[in-house]
């Protein structure tokens, strides 16, 4: 299974290589692809595959993967919840949302739920302060969050478990 994913990753990187972009961009795109395939993190085999396919030192992959907060080299949940920590969200009840999220998920920032479904993280401003407080789950953003609305949103993703 894991090996299959690595092969898929390799073939996708080969596609990336056909694009007219700089090598640095190819690495970043490949890291994103790896996270898509490997549940939001970059395991050792994936980093090795990227290093080989793009002919870069593997340490450089690790350097980039740890530099950008969007990547993780540690295993993360299937869904990634990123709650905005910036001031505009903070003053419109961000802290209450934070507390509610932690209660529902029974985890703190940087942790993953036992069932491996969610990882909770903080993020800097997402640029949609008008609808704060906001959070992102995977690629989707949710604005005007209220303590009441949170549960429903999370439940929607729990449905995926089946």
């Amino acid at each position, binding site marked *: 299974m894991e090996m299959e994913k690595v092969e898929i990753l390799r073939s996708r990187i080969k596609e990336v290589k056909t694009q007219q972009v700089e090598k640095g961009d190819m690495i970043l795109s490949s890291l994103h692809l790896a996270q898509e395939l490997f549940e939001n993190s970059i395991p*050792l085999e994936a*980093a090795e595959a990227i290093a080989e396919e793009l002919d870069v*030192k593997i*340490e*450089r992959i*690790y*350097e980039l993967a740890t*530099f950008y907060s969007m990547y993780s*080299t540690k295993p993360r949940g299937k869904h990634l919840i990123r709650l905005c920590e910036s001031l505009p969200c903070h003053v419109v009840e961000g802290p209450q949302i934070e507390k509610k999220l932690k209660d529902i998920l029974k985890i703190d920032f940087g942790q993953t739920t036992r069932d491996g479904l969610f990882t909770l993280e903080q993020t800097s401003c997402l640029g949609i302060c008008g609808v704060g407080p906001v959070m992102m789950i995977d690629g989707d953003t949710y604005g005007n969050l209220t303590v009441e609305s949170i549960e429903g949103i999370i439940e929607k993703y729990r449905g995926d478990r089946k």
Partner: protein
Amino acid sequence: MINEKTLSIEIDGKNYNIPEGKNLLEFLLENGFDIPHLCYHPALKSIGACRMCVVEVEGSKNLVTSCTAEIREGMKIKTNSPLVKESREVNLSLLLKDHPDDCMTCDQNGNCALQDLAYEYFPSGKPLFGYMKEKRYEIDDSSEFIVRDLNKCIKCQLCVRVCDEVEGMSIYSMVQRGHESYPSTFMNLPLAQTNCVSCGECASICPTGAIVEKPSIGKARWNKVEKVKTTCLYCGVGCQIDVYFDPKKNDIVRIQGSSENREVNDAIATCVKGKFGYSFVNHPDRLKSPLLKKNGEFVPVTWDEALDYTAKKLIEIKEKYGPDSIGFLSSARCTNEENYLLQKIARAIIGTNNIDHCARLCHASTVAGLSMTFGAGAMTNPIGDIEFAEVIIATGTNTTENHPVYGSRVKRAVRNGSHLIVIDPRKIELVDYAELWLRNLPGTDLAILNGLLNVIIHENLIDEEFISKRTEGFEEVKKAVEKYTPSYVSKISGVDEKKLVKAAEMYAKAKTASILYAMGITQHVSGTKNVIAIANLAMATGKIGRPGSGVNPLRGQSNVQGAGDVGCLPNLFPGNQPVSKESVIEKFKMAWNVEYLSDKNGLTSVEMFDAIMNGKIKALFVMGENPVMSHPDESHVRKALEKLEFMVDMDIFPNDTTKYAHVILAASSGFEKDGTFTNTERRVQRVRKVLNPVGNSKPDWMILKDLMNRLGYNAHYESPKEIMEEISKVSPIYAGISYDRIEHKGIQWPCRSIDDEGTAILHQNSFSTENGLGKFIPVEYTEPPEIPDEEYPFYLSTGRILYQYHTGTMTRRVKEINDLRPKVEIEINPEDAKDLGIKDGDIVRVSSRRGSIEGPAKITERSQKGLVFIPFHYAESPANMLTLAAIDPIAKIPTFKVSAVKIEKVKVEDRV
């Protein structure tokens, strides 16, 4: 690049002229300014990370880091203004806040740049923000050689940069961001699980105790050690090293690359052997007293008894059987001075030219082949010159393992844009860096080299001007290579035609191109012809005698170049002067004050063993060699040694050869004496005494001097310095070499007078032949004398690995190295292993027509299908039981790289 132009700048109110392009920090340090710095090293690009070297520049908004400052005309600089001081104080405090205050147990106490600065800036108080409260990182001590405690890391990035810029490995990178960043291995793996090659440069360069040498921990405080600079004892690169030692214990504590010699080892570089391979010095096995065999047992005797007996026996045998009944084997690991004395004993006292050394087993074909074509058998260009080569051909050299520091330079050249072509049957590390890899069948090099020239001629890529002005004999070679068309060569070598054509085009079309080669070219029956073919190729394309263009044989031992230079060859006096030439003989008779010198070429080392067998040689004098292990066909060598009437062996350890001696003279190691080595690029460098001779051992030169006097020759050398004075008098290429001149940096021969700065590149305007012209010599490919057949279906190739050195007498006595590579690994291709039902680590028996050995198999793509590789370091699995003693007819070098073997898995019940 530094050029002639200078800029005028003002520093602390005084005017200075600084060469344009000069690093400001370097300039300040050279001119006596006390500028603190933590992340600067002369070997590396500056990055301004630590911000301790800041200076105030008039008109600049912020303080400027002097290590990265751009210097402009008229610049006004203050190095110690209140602003500068305050900034440094705050900076240093920020660093110390993230550093523990446990100096009392830190291994770097007393040699820590951070500690020094803390003491200087806060002599009677605390840094502004205190010290680290809680440690954040676990210590990584997984490596045999290196311990990393990143709690002590100050993020100077020196380890990251040295591993990347100098070693070309990039084991570390800075991970995480900002305050959280630290130098880490990939995925934070323990160092032992990475590709780290243990060069130890990160430990050498770390300014604090974050990365330290594991074998040194607890050995001695820095204030108890002294430092001596010397030349590394291992390969021919000749790295300059600082040896730190404890005079009380007479023991080495640690070794670091000297920062003085950028031209040789990048002002820092070492390999695992040079950096960590020193603890053999005080190994309990060391010979501590001369030994005499009495009733079959070695018993310790006094020096007087041992030397009197040796002298008596040598004289006896000379009188009974004549001077040519004695053979001498000198050592490429002894100094120039010692080798000079031994050949002087052979020639001036005994009266024979039967003197040779292990170059016979490695580069005899180079000396022969390049002398015949270029007139001088040595590396044409300096080590650093490789970075000017547009195209590099590396053939038959596993550079990153056998000349690691030079290998790193090749990798760096590739990174900076050089195109690398590897011609090698094995998938060596350099293949990963190559644009083109010609994987040939063993022993087919000559066909390939001729084939390349064929393409070059066919496509009219020859350098006609160079050929007509500088060389002779091209037409014959042109004719000879006609039949070596790509298709013909492809059939012989197994290399794709297109690759052959491409390689030839790349080499010929490049503005500058350099060929590197080593044992893969020379250790063949056609060794000399292979070398000639390389010379032909270089001359036909004019790729010689210029920066970046040359023919570069890499020499394997610390002084293998020097041993030949000073006359330890059966046909040459010191300074490459032929023994058969009358004027030379007359000159040496005068210089040595003797009446007779033989004008007959002596026997080579391989021939000596045949001569023992047929009774011509009765006595053998061996200095620092181990022919039982290093020569081909081990059982033949053993039989010969048993037959000797008298054998004297001078060594630092008992080994497989000393067993056969009648007298063993206990020599001191290279760390216990003065002298010089000549490295692969012809650079004569100092070897300095670090320790007192261990036990009752004596430096070889002293033993030889004492023996000379006992043999009736007056020898009064007070020190090796005086011997070098004599060498420079008798050998014109060493005429300008003296200890005073090479105190800091070595000089490359030819160096013909005391005003001569030496010669970096050979053959610039004319070749060293008598008429000054390079000589093309046609050479024909012939099949190796033994190739696989039904009974012995595999090719066997032998060689070295990174961690061990030659017959292992030194490295196998270094605990950490031997723990890492304790056993032979027989390298087999995965497909072959599958066919034979062999798994990784299975014990296999490899047999040839001469014998068989056993050892664990290592399944690896490095060996192509049909090829087995066995390193020759391991006495319990001696690869040379298998090798063929067939020799090159010209250079008499044995064919270590091709013989035929069979492999079988050893069943457990078969094992004794």
